[in-house]
């Protein structure tokens, strides 16, 4: 690429970019353009005119309530999942690193966190559904009817229970590497200065881990907020949360004038997840200062 042939040089500098062209075409067709369809749809009406009225519908009535319930579900299960998952991660991490326990827990966590979906809904139907194992046990042996206050498994409380079941494993996967970043020298330093185990966790490990913990909580929030399969398999009547509202728009006849409402709901979800994931990335960077 000598300066004596500027035109050829410029051309030959472009040649390497040709190699990534197929990739760019592929992601444009199957990722970027679909995203554009959703975003553009959120700002247009049935006859493709630019409007903000579609988005404004989201700020009222059933849709606002669906967003509120989605956020509540995600926040509650993210916090519960993060606290419990951090405890489980600690219990696993204090054992040997290459041991079978850690290996099995990591693999199981991978399955429950990423594979789950429909199968987890069925797991809980078999457990605490109308003729589930635990339900039968409570009724026959203890004389308790767990559904005396209504069939809660197929509504918000049930969703929360099943979501926590896949949030804890995700926390274990995300938090174990953070715990691995704690250096034994730090603990030794605390001990040589006469500090106790509590002093170590309170003044050294805690503050070092805190950004990672907070970041993981955000990741769990985004995870629960985007989840669909579990809710779809569990809730067949009504649509309490946003993903199920979107299902309604995809599977049933759309009312005139509301063609783009599903896209507007999707756009709302993208915004919330994008904000949360950006904060997550920032916290990850902050966490990386001490934890490699």
């Amino acid at each position, binding site marked *: 690429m000598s300066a004596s042939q500027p035109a050829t040089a410029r051309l030959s500098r472009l040649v390497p970019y040709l190699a990534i062209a197929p990739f760019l075409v592929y992601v444009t067709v199957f990722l970027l353009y679909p995203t*554009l369809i959703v975003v553009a749809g959120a700002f247009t009406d049935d006859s493709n005119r630019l409007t903000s009225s579609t988005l404004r519908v989201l700020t009222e009535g059933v849709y606002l309530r669906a967003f509120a319930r989605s956020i509540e579900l995600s926040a509650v299960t993210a916090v519960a999942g993060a606290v419990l998952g951090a405890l489980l991660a600690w219990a696993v991490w204090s054992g*040997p690193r290459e041991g079978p326990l850690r*290996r099995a827990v990591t693999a199981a966590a991978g*399955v429950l966190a*990423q594979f789950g979906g429909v199968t987890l809904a069925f797991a809980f139907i078999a457990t605490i559904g109308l003729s589930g*194992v635990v339900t039968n046990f409570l009724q026959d042996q203890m004389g308790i009817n767990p559904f005396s206050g209504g069939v809660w498994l197929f509504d918000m409380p049930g969703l929360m229970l099943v979501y926590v079941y896949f949030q804890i494993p995700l926390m274990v996967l995300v938090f174990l590497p953070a715990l691995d970043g704690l250096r*034994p020298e730090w603990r030794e330093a605390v001990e040589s200065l006469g500090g106790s185990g509590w002093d170590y966790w309170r003044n050294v490990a805690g503050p070092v881990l805190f950004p990672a913990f907070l970041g993981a909580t955000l990741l769990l929030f985004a*995870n629960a907020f985007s989840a669909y399969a579990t809710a*779809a398999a569990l809730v067949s009547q009504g649509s309490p949360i946003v993903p199920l509202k979107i299902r309604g728009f995809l599977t049933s006849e759309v009312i005139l004038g509301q063609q783009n409402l599903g896209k507007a709901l999707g756009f709302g979800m993208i915004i919330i997840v994008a904000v949360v994931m950006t904060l997550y990335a920032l916290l990850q960077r902050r966490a990386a200062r001490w934890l490699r």
Partner: protein
Amino acid sequence: MTAPTPDALAPSAPSAPPVASGVAGRARAPRGSRRRTVWRWLLLLAFAVFFLVPLLAMLEFSTRGAGGRTFDAWRAIVKDPDLVSAITISLELAVLTAVGMLLLLVPVATWVHLRLPRVRRLIEFICLLPLTIPAIVLVVGVAPIYAWVTYFFGESSLTLTFVYVILVLPYAYRAIDNGLGAIDLRTLAEAARSLGAGWASVLARVVVPNIRGALVSASFLSVALVLGEFTLASLLNFNNLQVTINLLGKRDSAVSVAVSLASLVFAFVLLLALSYVGRRRASSGVTEEG
């Protein structure tokens, strides 16, 4: 959502006794560590109960008979033609997606490392983008595209491969990018080039063998994700394992619970095997991670 990343370097837990501590420290350490061990096992026990009860309940539920245990529901897994075809489709989708992902991603990731470091951030951004676009939203935008896909490729459920490759992009990219970062790619490629190898053979005979572990991780993760995928298949009106399990739940819940448990166990075995692949790599001296 995050791929399990076993990082190889950090030392293990401080389970070993502290090295340099005074008399007071030595007197305190055993009591503290014993208390810690008790807490640890209590916690593990509580979590084991929480996580195993639903799984054991599935086993009980799926073997209920009219007066005793029966394995009819489990036998039905291989007898029900719908289920057999759904399992076949999901396995085919898993393989096609893994192959498609490798073909799409390995050349680009390698090329970006070697020749175009300036667009590396852009490629990374695109690959991680699906993390911020929930599948339920992606399906809204992809549905019009699939009108064209079925027009060109027919109505086969296998066309889901196209969108599944997008779905696994973030996890696969991270695994492959880590693998590439851990080897001295530039030197290897230059050595091969100076011996007269073309870019294609650099890729196939130098890069791929050196990041084999990362490619295996990326493929396993893709397979696990595809086998568990429900959202896109269900809302684009295709059939796969999860869609069929869900439909079956309304007809014969014992069978659907049996398949659910079977698929969870299958995925567990898959990921456990993956963790041993990772260890073999570490002990054979190749320093990379997945």
